[in-house]
């Protein structure tokens, strides 16, 4: 029975993943900022699974606390078999240009803090000589687009970092998975009108589970986003800059 750690456990994708795998886990540690939500999630996970459930309240945006947090978690769980980093915020792109401080806060949350956590987790897993680090990026990380480039660039930073980390960790039997969801119907996107390209969090969770089992490197979910992004990446810049994407 594996020990699972979920950072940003109250996110929609994390919830769907927990519903899917909780009954196969020996211990589950849930980390999130909102104590009340985390309590509600804890009782849910404890009901659907026989695993020992731990909760830790932590504002993951603040990188200063990461060292202590991860060392404590590693000590408590004994071993971290799988860690899923699943938090993120969709910034209001139009506000970013007016308010660069806001923009950098968002970048730190979606980018720097995820990289920092990944470093601390990789250190623990390297020491263990095993483990899976699964990090939720985004298809938005593939190319900066007018409508969403602050979020996209933070995810892009995370994904470049993970590509290097994956190669580094390969020598230490640590699996690094980059998850790139497209549009997912979760609370983070509840204000956006949904169309045919939208996927449910359950579908994304099933893809994540399979990718972890099969030790995939980069997961586009649903699969067709790989090809949509291939097209988007291949548009020449002089045309792309005129597109309202």
């Amino acid at each position, binding site marked *: 029975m594996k020990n699972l750690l979920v950072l940003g456990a109250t996110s*929609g994708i994390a919830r769907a993943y927990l519903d899917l795998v909780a009954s196969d886990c020996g211990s589950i540690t849930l980390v999130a900022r909102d104590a*009340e*939500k985390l309590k*509600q*999630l804890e*009782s*849910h996970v404890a*009901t659907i699974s026989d695993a020992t459930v731990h909760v830790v309240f932590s504002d993951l945006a603040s990188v200063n606390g990461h060292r202590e947090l991860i060392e404590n978690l590693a000590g408590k769980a004994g071993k971290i078999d799988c860690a899923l980093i699943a938090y993120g915020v969709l910034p209001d792109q139009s506000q970013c240009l007016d308010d660069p401080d806001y923009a950098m806060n968002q970048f730190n949350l979606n980018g720097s803090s995820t990289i920092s956590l990944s470093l601390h987790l990789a250190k623990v897993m390297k020491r263990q000589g095993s483990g899976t680090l699964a990090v939720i990026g985004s298809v938005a990380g593939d190319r900066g687009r007018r409508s969403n480039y602050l979020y996209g660039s933070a995810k892009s930073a995370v994904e470049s970092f993970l590509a290097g980390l994956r190669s580094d960790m390969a020598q230490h039997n640590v699996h690094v998975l980059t998850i790139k969801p497209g549009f997912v119907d979760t*609370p983070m996107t*509840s204000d956006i009108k949904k169309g045919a390209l939208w996927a449910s969090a359950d579908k994304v969770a099933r893809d994540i589970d399979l990718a972890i089992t099969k030790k995939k490197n980069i997961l586009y979910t649903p699969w067709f986003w790989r090809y949509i992004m291939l097209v988007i990446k291949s548009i020449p810049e002089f045309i792309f800059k005129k597109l309202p994407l």
Partner: protein
Amino acid sequence: MGDSWGNLHRANQSRTDICWRDTALPANDKLLTVGNRRSYGDVCINDGGVIVNATGLNKFIQFDAQNGILRCESGVTLWQVLKLVVPMGWFLPVTPGTGFVTLGGAVANDVHGKNHHAVGSFGCFVRSFGLRRSVEGDMTCSQVENQQMFAATIGGLGLTGTITWVELSLKKISHSSMAVESIAYENYAEFLALSEDSEKSHEYCVSWIDCLNTSGRGVFFRATHGQQGSLDDPVGTGARSVPAIVGTGFPLVNQLSLRLFNYFYIRSHEGTRDYSETIAKFFYPLDSLLNWNRIYGRKGFYQFQCVVPFDNADVLKKVLKKISNEKQGSFLSVLKTMGDITSPAMLSFCRPGVTLALDFPNRGARTTKLLSALETMAVEAGGAIYPAKDATMTGETFEKSFPRVSEFTDYIDPSYTSSFWQRVKSA
């Protein structure tokens, strides 16, 4: 597509989602909290107001596997419950014909199932629930705490506030299979005799009747929980979906397809048969075809469900005759008897008698005229129409067949309303 299962309405309503029990509800004086919107008509529609979608409020809170007491959020679906509890030897005490309804919706419509004659409706098994009111805030309602609000909210069509969680007592089972017997019958009288006879021996009884055929032939099903096999996961093979494109075009349902379907269905159930079936197949035959409502095309469909008291049960013979004469009926209709066990609900549809339910493809005025005639027949016989299925009953019918309406009105949250309520109360 429309905003409820019948696809009849396209409402002008805004939507907000809640996923956590402590999330504040929008400040608005025209709210309606809804679940999976499996009601056919307009009880889950709020034209001109705000829909609070509680399907994300779907976490378990506690399960006492010793005593079969489950507490969970109101957006948890019956399928979610079954997946958790069946392998542990528990089952829903009452379940309607789809597992996609939420617990909140099951409470608000005081739903019933194939075992109504034996155990009563869903509301009989609700131990307590959380209710959020616009002024009073969060309150717990049960048989001992806020009893009146408890009785008003069960069957209260979502008008008393937002149900945030529900505590339910479950039923013990030792096997997850169903032992089913199917018996063909030739007419309505035979159905009544079979019902009377089977209710003593079988917890679950239901029948399908061919409403296109004037003779009243049908198939009676009676079942008990199996005495062999294991406690498997109730979920069978993966469900298939009717593509969205089907729902935007002409209906696939027409006189020819219906006659063929009904003919072959009845033919395949000739005589008497004993067999074992999964929970999914016995209770939720249509759940394996997601979005089956799309087969009625973009105009949608009505469902008519009435109950008439046993003393006047023969009126359903006339109702069935009228339906077959008009040639508007659809697939096999459901015919079943209801018993005399009542839930605490002030507005429960369930009452002793015989209930008939069937679909009508929406053919405009022709269909609503027929529905109105059927409504009159049922109400004159002392019966009632089921709000969860209804899109057309008059305010007069509603008041007449739900005698505690005026008492109920006192418990409505002033910030809540629905298209159904506007319809039946403005008359």
